């Protein structure tokens, strides 16, 4: 699911392997850019005071990849950025493990900050991935903002 046509080094992937944010960030580096902004989302120990033991992420994979591709296209139309990499992990994740990495390279860092923030916001709204929080006394599928999409 890596798109690499000539100059562009965008990519979007779903994996069950641990994420190495440094390696992901490095893959978006173009020659004429000087800054990469990376968002590293990870499993919190506490949500609203309740202690999470671990999380399980599940995706509607083919649709998730299509939505990730759209996100990249839209971000590149909206912001003056060069390359984008998005990798989301699925399956069981322990506290502190990285669930998603979004890296954006741009000639001017302002655009990379804006685009990275926009991408994580939109990913959480549109990409069909769900997380289940598992507690000592139960588990719950987390529901996003239902007004956000569709």
């Amino acid at each position, binding site marked *: 699911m890596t798109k690499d046509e000539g100059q562009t080094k965008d990519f979007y992937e779903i994996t069950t392997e641990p994420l190495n944010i440094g390696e992901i960030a490095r893959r978006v580096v173009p020659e004429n850019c000087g800054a990469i902004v990376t968002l590293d989302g990870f499993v919190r120990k506490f949500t609203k005071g309740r202690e999470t033991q671990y999380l399980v*992420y*599940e995706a509607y994979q083919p*649709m998730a990849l299509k939505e990730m591709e759209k996100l990249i296209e839209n971000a590149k139309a909206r912001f003056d950025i060069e390359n984008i990499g998005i990798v989301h992990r699925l399956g069981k994740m322990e506290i502190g493990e990285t669930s*998603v990495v979004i890296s954006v390279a741009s000639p001017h860092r302002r655009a990379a900050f804006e685009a990275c923030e926009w991408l994580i916001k939109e990913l959480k*709204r549109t990409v069909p*991935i*769900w997380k289940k929080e598992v507690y000592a006394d139960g588990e719950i599928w987390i529901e*996003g903002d*239902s007004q956000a*999409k569709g």
Partner: protein
Amino acid sequence: MKVNVLFFGATADSVGERQIEISLEENLKAETALSQILEKFPALQKNHDKKSLHFAVNQEYASGDEIIKNGDELAIFTAVSGG
């Protein structure tokens, strides 16, 4: 006609299945197809407010006006929570 209906996360737990092939009348609008599917799965209606459910047709969010065709892949799920 036959369509495949996929469930994920909370909706898969409600239905107890992740994928079901069902029969629907021809040329249904997505909106109507969703209502008919909900009627077939009382647990979906019981556990979820219809407004909170999202509906996809062939891996695209549905507006409701799409015409469902034989062999289409439908999906019903709650608001996404990735990231």
